């Protein structure tokens, strides 16, 4: 990348993300920052998401803050976070106000079902791209770990924090020796 995006560009990127973020904003972040704008590679995306996953709080706001900070410091972080949070807060206050009236309408529920199904597809896209990136870096070690973390979470055997605690250290030690 030649020069980092401006604060203004960061703001509008996250504004667009949040306005499109039906069902899981992280898939839209990937699409906007990696696929469309090429501000990050798949690998950088996965690295940043991993860091944010590790910290308390919404992964997505952490992600916005970290990306904004890396490009434009505190101003960049503030721009990304504000764009991500403020518009949907106002929209959801509006939704909350009409909630009782709209939730009974069959067409509204139906439209929500349709959007939810489409949103699930975007998560599959994100998964395929991350798997592709993973296959480039020693899949013999990393793929079994990904499969294990998938399995314990999808079966409900472990919650996400416990899965992080159980598999994180093992995976980090393996990465340590791989790099030495």
């Amino acid at each position, binding site marked *: 990348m030649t020069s980092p995006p401006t604060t203004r560009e960061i703001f509008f990127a996250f504004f667009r993300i949040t306005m499109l973020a039906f*069902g*899981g904003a992280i898939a839209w972040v990937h699409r906007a920052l990696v696929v469309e704008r090429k501000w990050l590679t798949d690998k950088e995306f996965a690295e940043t998401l991993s860091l944010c996953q590790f910290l308390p709080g919404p992964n997505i706001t952490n992600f916005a803050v970290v990306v904004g900070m890396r490009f434009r410091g505190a101003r960049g972080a503030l721009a990304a976070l504000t764009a991500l949070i403020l518009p949907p807060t106002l929209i959801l206050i509006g939704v909350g106000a009409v909630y009782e009236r709209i939730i009974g309408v069959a067409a509204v529920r139906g439209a929500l*079902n349709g959007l*939810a199904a489409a949103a699930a597809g975007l998560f*599959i896209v994100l998964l395929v791209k991350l798997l592709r990136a993973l296959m480039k870096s020693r899949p013999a070690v990393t793929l079994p770990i*990904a499969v294990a973390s998938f399995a314990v979470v999808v079966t409900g055997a472990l919650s*996400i924090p416990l899965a992080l605690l159980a598999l994180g250290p093992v995976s*980090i030690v393996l990465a340590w020796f791989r790099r*030495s």
Partner: protein
Amino acid sequence: MHVDPAFWHAIGALFTRVAELALISFGGVNTVLPALHHQAVNEEHWITDRDFANLFALASVSPGPNFMVLTLIGYKAAGVLGALVATLTLCIPTSLLAFAVAKVWDRFKAAHWRMAIQDGLIPVTVGFIAAAAVLLVRASDNSIAGYAITAAVAIVGVATRFNPLWIFAISAVVGAAGLV
């Protein structure tokens, strides 16, 4: 301004409840959703069980990250101020922490231990995304049409450079017609 003790009690409770949840939400807000559900429905009686399911679905398909179901719960508990208190109490402290940690983290860009932690966490994160994708498909697809929509978005997103947004628009219409 008229002072209503119940209102201010709800604001105070929102603040303390959400602050607690924010601090323990390692791995993302999804990990504390069961606790949020219990507190909002059974302990504080802000909403009913059914409300929680509806608000969650509404937040997932509204603009903004999914964790903003909290904004809707805040609105139901204590109106506009409740929505703002819930949202900001979750986002601001965790964002400040993410900012500080990422700053330190980036200082050690070339350190062996940092690269090991980073490389080690990526496959675990990819596993979480895979689990999220499966759970999302399971939760949102209840019909052949639902699966078809999910598959269409996935295929278009993986194999082409087209923006899948137009599939979202079609999905909403198909859903509103009662077909999903």
